[in-house]
């Protein structure tokens, strides 16, 4: 597009134009994303005391986080909650994505997708809060069941539990699971399915052997899209867990801001990022294997 300042052939080359074009968002991301993340890595290697940050680098914070009972318990809780949410969300979402892709007339597909996405563009806080209102001790379910006489006393198992947190998050991230699965189902060449059935496979066998493997990239994308934000969720443990079931994000806030230990807080944040990265890599590798297995 616009010529760069360097003279010569480079000025008009495609590479120069491309780099010039991408530079505004790239510079923004470097300054406000890469630099802060690097700063956080540095912080996590220092020691934060009343006097200020030490200058020497040490792994003490990481040792503290990885061996500390509270931190370990919170990591495990966060992982359990987000793994369960991911499982529930993807299992519930797959049939819906399948239905929209295979059983809805093409001209009605975008209406279905529109209906599915609408709830997710409404205030996340209010959606989470609504679950608190629904599941609470004096909430909608308890008062509703009591007023029609099914139960005499409020159910306590539904409030402030891991189960209600999982329910809330599974509802909050449903659309994020449906969309990638839908996209991968849409890409499947329908003649494969006819071929499978022409060759004498039952409908169910065709689904297991053709449709499901071909939609795997979408399933894996859905897993990542749900898993990553849920493991770092702050609002749900605060509102639904009533602050009694904190997850890793709440811990980061407590250490960073309430105890004002930026070094330890950074180490927890970096550990959380490491967990997210490891899980993502595992799933991306699984996806690769799937794609390779297919091309054999």
């Amino acid at each position, binding site marked *: 597009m616009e010529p760069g300042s360097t003279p010569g052939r480079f000025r008009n080359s495609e590479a120069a134009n491309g780099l010039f074009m991408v530079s505004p968002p790239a510079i923004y991301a470097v300054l406000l994303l890469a630099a802060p993340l690097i700063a956080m890595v540095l912080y996590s290697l220092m020691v934060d005391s009343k006097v200020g940050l030490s200058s020497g680098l040490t792994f003490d914070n990481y040792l503290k986080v990885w061996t500390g009972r509270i931190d370990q318990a919170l990591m495990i809780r966060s992982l359990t909650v987000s793994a369960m949410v991911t499982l529930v969300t993807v299992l519930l979402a797959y049939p819906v994505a399948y239905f929209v892709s295979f059983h809805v007339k093409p001209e009605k597909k975008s209406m279905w997708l529109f209906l599915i996405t609408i709830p997710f563009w409404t205030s996340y806080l209010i959606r989470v*809060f609504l679950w608190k209102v629904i599941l609470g001790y004096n909430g909608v379910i308890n008062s509703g069941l009591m007023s029609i006489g099914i139960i005499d006393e409020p159910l306590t198992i539904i409030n402030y539990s891991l189960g209600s947190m999982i329910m809330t998050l599974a*509802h909050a991230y449903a659309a994020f699971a449906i969309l990638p699965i839908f996209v991968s189902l849409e890409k499947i060449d329908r003649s494969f399915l006819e071929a499978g059935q022409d060759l004498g496979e039952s409908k169910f066998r065709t689904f297991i052997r053709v449709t499901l493997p071909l939609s795997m990239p979408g399933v894996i994308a859905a897993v990542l899209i749900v898993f990553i934000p849920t493991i770092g969720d702050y609002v749900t443990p605060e509102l639904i867990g009533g602050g009694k079931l904190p997850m890793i994000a709440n811990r980061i806030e407590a250490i960073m801001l309430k105890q004002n230990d930026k070094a330890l807080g950074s180490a927890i944040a970096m550990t959380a990022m490491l967990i997210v990265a490891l899980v993502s890599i595992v799933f991306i590798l699984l996806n690769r294997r799937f794609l390779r297995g297919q091309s054999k």
Partner: protein
Amino acid sequence: MSKNPSLKIYAIAYLIFLYAPIALLPVFAFNDSRVIAFPLAGFTTNWFAEMWADNQLFKAFRNSLTIATTSAVIATALGIFAARASTRYKFPGKGGVLGLIMLPMVLPEMIISMSLLVVLIAVGVPLSIFTIILGHVLICTPFAVAILTSAFQSLDRSLEEAAYDLGESPASTFRLIILPLVMPGIISSLLICFTISLDEFIIAYFLGGNQSVLSVYIFGQFRFPAKVPAVMALGFVLVCISVCLLTIAEYFRRRGIAKTGGKDTGGFL
């Protein structure tokens, strides 16, 4: 395609599950009782009046509008650059650069806000609406890039070449040919970034200093059980606004597809 009633019933049940909590908003926003519980106690519009009378809400709402508008414009502008670069050019390090720009999509928001907070405090930038905008642009840009990339991808390269052949400069080609064709994408990117920013809580909560925005205001209200019905009323109003914005975004997205002669596959993402 074969008919499978059980799958359709399941899909409809799923939609009901998605909408059920939101359906409670109008029910309790108009219910004449401070306690959110059954049985219902009659019709009232008091909660809307109570919400309307709260000055703090208006202040927070004004802040949110400023932040959402600014963030949407900047993120979409950055998104245009990234989408154009990714669809039109090959350059060294393309995957890495675009990966970095898209990274906030897959990073827990808590980590983004804490790393920004640490740096802002170290550099000595006071927390304000401006710092919230910095964070929101970061998380909105990937969505803008995703939407705009699909808009730029459906462009026919030969239209651009035809304009060059007819003597237009690159700048005028961009303005006269490319911009009008991707305009629907730009509008839906603006609307979606606006919605994301308006809804965002974590960054606004931690980077806002003592400036309140809508989501932080709502979060604060949850501490007072007596305020809950007014929050339900506010929630109902917000849902209505988002549905309107999304319908407009969807309209422009479809028009964009029709304009470039593509096939509608549905969905924003």
